[in-house]
């Protein structure tokens, strides 16, 4: 019964997110507030269903459901949806939903298509602390990605305004100030949750494996990347950077951070390889 519910929800989730994406796209194009309200409600519905799905799965299989790529994809979709929803509610601005729901929808579609709900996983990963570590890490990465996308939007809109072009981007996106504010929330949330995720990773290693830090390239690079991002954030805050400079920093900061992690993940195959 429970497994059937899990499988049904696995199909339902992309449908919910897909429909929310369509509504956000219509809202972006027509700017009819009713569409925005419905899109937001549907997104909240999707998030609730997704949460139930993750909890049900965790209870049924007795592990935190982030043990393989496709489960991680679903978690990224969930985290992105949650972070975006919070930013949208804080700013009462839903015109950027189209871009994030596209990401959420794509990740969930790939996850739903290839995920195997068979409960096979490494026993090491059944530890709840690993789940929390991964959850916060992915939440942090999603938030930083959201911040980078806001930076990109700022950049695009600023370019349109500067060039006196009044097309779909000009019409559809909120003001530059709003984009900047939304991006700031994303990057701060990302910095905090990613920091927490990395710290919990070290704590988990200490509890399970007996050491707090290991000279594993992935760990070293992740730590350095996070510290660099945090220092960058401090510099931005202290110097009061805003506008184009901030948006460029948010975008390139994330790209460099992500590239560093990707490079060590592709090249290295040590500590973080779970089978």
């Amino acid at each position, binding site marked *: 019964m429970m497994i059937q519910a899990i499988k049904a929800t696995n199909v339902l989730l992309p449908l919910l997110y897909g429909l929310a994406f369509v509504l956000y796209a219509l809202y972006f194009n027509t700017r009819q507030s009713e569409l925005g309200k419905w899109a937001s409600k549907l997104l909240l519905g999707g998030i609730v269903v997704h949460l139930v799905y993750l909890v049900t799965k965790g209870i049924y299989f007795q592990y935190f459901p982030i043990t393989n790529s496709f489960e991680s994809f679903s978690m990224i979709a969930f985290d992105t949806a949650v972070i975006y929803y919070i930013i949208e509610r804080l700013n009462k601005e839903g015109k950027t939903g189209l871009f994030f729901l596209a990401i959420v929808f794509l990740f969930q579609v790939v996850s739903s298509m290839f995920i195997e709900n068979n409960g096979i996983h490494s026993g090491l990963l059944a530890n709840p602390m690993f789940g929390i570590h991964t959850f916060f890490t992915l939440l942090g990465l999603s938030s930083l990605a959201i911040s980078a996308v806001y930076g990109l939007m700022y950049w695009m809109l600023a370019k349109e*305004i500067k060039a006196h072009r009044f097309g779909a981007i*000009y019409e559809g996106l909120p003001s530059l100030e709003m984009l900047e504010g939304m991006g700031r929330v994303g990057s701060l949330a990302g910095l905090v949750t990613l920091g927490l995720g990395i710290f919990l990773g070290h704590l988990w290693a200490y509890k399970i494996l007996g050491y707090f830090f290991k000279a594993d390239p992935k760990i070293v690079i992740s730590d350095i990347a996070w510290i660099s991002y945090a220092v960058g954030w401090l510099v931005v805050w202290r110097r009061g950077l805003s*506008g184009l400079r901030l948006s460029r920093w948010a975008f390139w900061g994330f790209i460099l951070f992500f590239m560093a992690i990707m490079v060590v993940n592709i090249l290295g195959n040590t500590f973080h390889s779970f089978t």
Partner: protein
Amino acid sequence: MQNNQIVHIGYSHKNASVAVRDAVSLSPDVALAFIEAGVNNPASAIQEMAVITTCNRTEFYFVSNRPEILKDWLFSEYQLRHHLDLSQTDAVPLILFNEDAVDHLFAVAGGLESMVLGENQILSQVKSSYDLILSSGYQFPLLNRLFQEAIRAGKSVRTNTALCQGAVSISLAAVELARKIYSSFEKRKILLVGAGETNELVAIHFKAIGATQFIVANRGVEKRQKLAEKYAAKAISLDHLEDALLEADVVIVATGSQHYLIDFALMQRVIKLRNHRSLLMVDISSPRNVDPAVSKLDEIFLYDIDHLKNVIAENLEKRRGEIPHAKELIATVNKDYSTWLKSLDVVPTISKLAGYFNQIRQQELEKFVNKTEDREFEHLEQLSKSIVKKLLHYPILNLREMANGQKLDMSKINTIWEIFRLFELEERNKEDKTN
């Protein structure tokens, strides 16, 4: 209601010069006096009357059973009250009847008839006319409903189409641009370089969206002080422009200067000192007062008057594209009003109801034709007529009152027709006539 017609007589930018429009324009008090004169004078045959008066139009809406005399009555009122002989002017008033008049009012409320397509103010002016009807103390059921529907049509057009969106004036276009950069203006500083009419208009629009901090920079002391006082602004001379540029978030330049007041070198310096904060600069001057090279700086969004004119042209084009949609919405409201109007036509129902009762009366009387003496039969006939008359008295009275009080609609009329099978009666009568 039977012979009453809704009539529109009006002057607007489409059929009258500014001089005529100014001459026929009425203040609310005078408009009320016109209404009183119309409805209190039986010779005018005006049952109901309303007036819309703005700087671009003065329109009269009447309900009357003698529409042919309304124009003369109106002209005589203008002659009497304004000493204005409208027959001597070149302008010919636009006269519309019934559905055309209704359609026209809805189009006016929707902004379709405005000089600037989709203009917003007209809806509040239609509301003012409606308020005038209400405050007049007269019972104007048809116009009351008509104006309610017009306001609904106007709101529907504004909510469901982009007909009224996008700035169509230079000052509003500047404000609209600023709104794409900043989301709120309470803490934003607006620097007005120049203290002329254009910058005053800009200040009005910025104030309307929440701006409270203004700086007025102008060469002439008196003018800058005057504008600064109006908007609780800081007044500075042009010598202190650089300092003001450091603080400002929006700069509007509208002066008569023949050379650049703000050049590239100045702004390069300013931007560094501003820690690269974004700045919107709108140069409405002709010739331009801001060096176009300034736009090379990443953080500066520079617009001149030509750019703003393009914004306005694009907005107007977009508005024009919304006309068919707006017309569809208006047609829907018009249909609702027509349906309601027709439902008020209770005369056929009353006549059919009376016919139904009389038919029964006659059928029953016929049973006594050869059974009673002539005199007795006459008594019976009198009695039956009197009973039918009394039976019908309250239904007919109530129907008329409900119609006048706008409490009647098509569904209620239909119920009466169904209860008494009036549709069948009508069909039978038609067949009888054919045979």
